[in-house]
């Protein structure tokens, strides 16, 4: 392709986008004061921006097509840097130790504000890993995941309010109720395929939120529940700062537990059944996997982590109301899973850290956050559907005495 054709194409794209964004970007009407504002500078910015981006877009598309062709010719996908680190034991173990030390020392070095942010990040690691079971491993797109989070949070808040139960009692109850609701949602949607499932789970999430908002006698409506106690430790009195650290360590412990459990689950019999279900439902059934049980366990186990995280959320913020559990929260968690790499634990951990910490430290761009999420979701799906850390498929190698035949 000659550069002239390329430039002509880009000019056309740029004209098209200037036309497309004209009414929304350029004109702003104020119907109260009856003024029309013309913002021509936006049009110039759009024109220039789309002119340049169209080159990048076409270049990326071409690269992607070449990549597909290369794969077809038999060269397997290259391993990413994380996977290479994971395989090299000499680097992997010291790196892990270093990371563990850093995580333990961290809260004593920085301010309470930073500790709280890290606590949130670890909470999202739990949520992300939980959703990863449902979306990444079992391939069931769940857009109502935040409902289970809400169940956990309200379990603690309400049980504490009415019966005075403490955090440690409520933690397992919250997890169990989360799992219970997971099964409750799982039953009706067993027969549904991908996209119907997405909508029904979305509906389920909204139902829970709307009920919490409207059923005043039960959940205290939109005003929420305040004065939820922080977790205690055998009656020891903590300062506010010590409490922040204490919750941090609880969350870290639970997140490590989550990582351990999810890792074990993925390599278990049920984990392999989930993978099989994701790849091909019919073939999976033909191989004798019980579809009902497999799907239900995926929902239940995914929801368990959300329930746990919900209890912690209520204890950490000491105040909850339905506004914390909107559909955007579900999408936020979904972004973590998708960005990190569906099905990959390292990926989800990285995704959670990126998506929680970046917006926190880029406050100046706070209003562009969701816009960027949207762009990232589309671009990820188009150019790198595997996420930051693509999951490697398990492969088996036969090395028996008769492997020479193979």
């Amino acid at each position, binding site marked *: 392709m000659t550069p002239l054709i390329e430039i002509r194409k880009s000019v056309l794209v740029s004209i098209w986008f200037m036309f497309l*964004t004209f009414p929304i970007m350029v004109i702003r009407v104020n119907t109260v004061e009856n003024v029309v504002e013309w913002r021509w500078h936006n049009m110039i910015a759009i024109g220039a921006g789309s002119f340049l981006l169209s080159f990048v877009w076409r270049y990326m598309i071409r690269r992607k097509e070449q990549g597909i062709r290369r794969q077809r010719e038999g060269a397997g996908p290259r391993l990413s840097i994380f996977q290479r680190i994971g395989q090299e034991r000499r680097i992997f173990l010291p790196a892990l130790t270093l990371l563990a030390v850093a995580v333990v020392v961290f809260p004593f070095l920085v301010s309470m504000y930073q500790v709280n942010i890290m606590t949130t990040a670890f909470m999202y690691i739990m949520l992300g890993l939980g959703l990863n079971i449902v979306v990444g491993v079992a391939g069931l797109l769940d857009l109502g995941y935040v409902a289970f989070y809400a169940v956990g949070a309200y379990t603690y808040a309400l049980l504490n309010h009415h019966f005075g139960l403490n955090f440690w009692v409520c933690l397992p109850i919250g997890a169990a109720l989360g799992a219970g609701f997971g099964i409750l949602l799982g039953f009706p949607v067993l027969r549904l395929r991908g996209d119907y499932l997405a909508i029904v789970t979305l509906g*389920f999430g909204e139902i829970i939120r709307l009920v919490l908002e409207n059923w005043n006698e039960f959940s205290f409506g939109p005003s929420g529940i305040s004065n939820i106690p922080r977790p205690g430790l055998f009656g020891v009195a903590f300062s506010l700062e010590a409490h922040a650290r204490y919750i941090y360590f609880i969350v870290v412990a639970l997140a490590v537990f989550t990582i351990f459990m999810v890792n074990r689950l993925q390599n278990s019999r049920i984990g392999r059944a989930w993978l099989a279900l994701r790849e091909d439902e019919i073939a999976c059934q033909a191989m004798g996997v019980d579809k009902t049980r497999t799907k239900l366990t995926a929902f239940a186990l995914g929801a368990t982590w959300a329930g746990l995280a919900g209890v912690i959320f209520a204890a950490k913020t000491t105040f909850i109301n339905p506004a914390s559990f909107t559909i955007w929260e579900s999408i936020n968690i979904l972004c973590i899973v998708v960005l990190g790499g569906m099905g990959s634990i390292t990926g989800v951990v990285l995704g959670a850290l990126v998506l929680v910490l970046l917006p926190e430290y880029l406050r100046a761009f706070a209003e562009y956050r969701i816009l960027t999420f949207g762009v990232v979701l589309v671009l990820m799906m188009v150019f790198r559907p595997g996420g930051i850390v693509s999951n490697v498929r398990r492969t088996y190698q036969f090395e028996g005495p008769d492997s020479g035949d193979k």
Partner: protein
Amino acid sequence: MDLQYFAELFLGGLTRGSIYALIALGYTMVYGIIELINFAHGEIYMIGAFTGLIVATVLTFAGFPTLAVLVLASVAAVVYSSCYGFTMEKIAYKPLRGAPRLSVLISAIGMSLFLQNYVLLAQTSDFLPFPSLVPDLAFWEPYAHIISSQEIVIISVTATVMVLLNLLIKFTRMGKAMRATSQDREMAMLTGVDVNRVISVTFVIGSATAALGAVLIASHIGQINFYIGFIAGIKAFVAAVLGGIGSVPGAVVGALVLGWTESFFTGYISSDYEDVFAFIFLVVILIFKPSGILGRSETQKV
């Protein structure tokens, strides 16, 4: 039971249903052709409403007569929404032909987030008052207490669009190509159907009807903001599924049923749980009759 109250609710439901039908068409047509739930369809509707509002306001200031404003604003909304639908398909869906369905769905969600926030940032997060563009028809004055002329316009526009669309699908070359593509995309390609063009045309038609619905409903309700697409999109989707997704007459039937049930439910029982009700309705349908009222049940192919 009060008959007049009943009639009011019935006609209110009919209007509601007509509007859901205009939006549901986009879902059902796109699903019929590429089996994708276009999450961003509600956003196309919202962009239609905003374009309509902006053009209408500018033209009113310029001193155009009411009727000209109505026509030009509707045309602008339809044209722009179609262009957005077309561009969206090229960017977010076309590179993903043949990718797993989960990927396309996530891409659609991303597109929806993007468009919503694009309008939020470029325009405003407040509710904007939408001028009442549809004039009161003089000859309808005696019956206006039963059903307003606005509602009459909404219902008749919907009916016209449906008839035209049905004719298009049944009798034109393009309609034939659409039906072929929805039955078997690869086979259609082999027989010389330009599948990419068919998909583009489908997106354009779906977006155009959504924009028409947007202008009508916005001038009926009287206010818009960047978030209206989400709930309207969900409702329209429920309607499309209810009628049997992929079937055009099904979308109309489903939309009317949903409009009536919602209207009677809020009229006789409670208005607090209006949206909850739509969702529960959806879940119940999907459990007992996933193929919808007019949809054909699909056998899974191995």
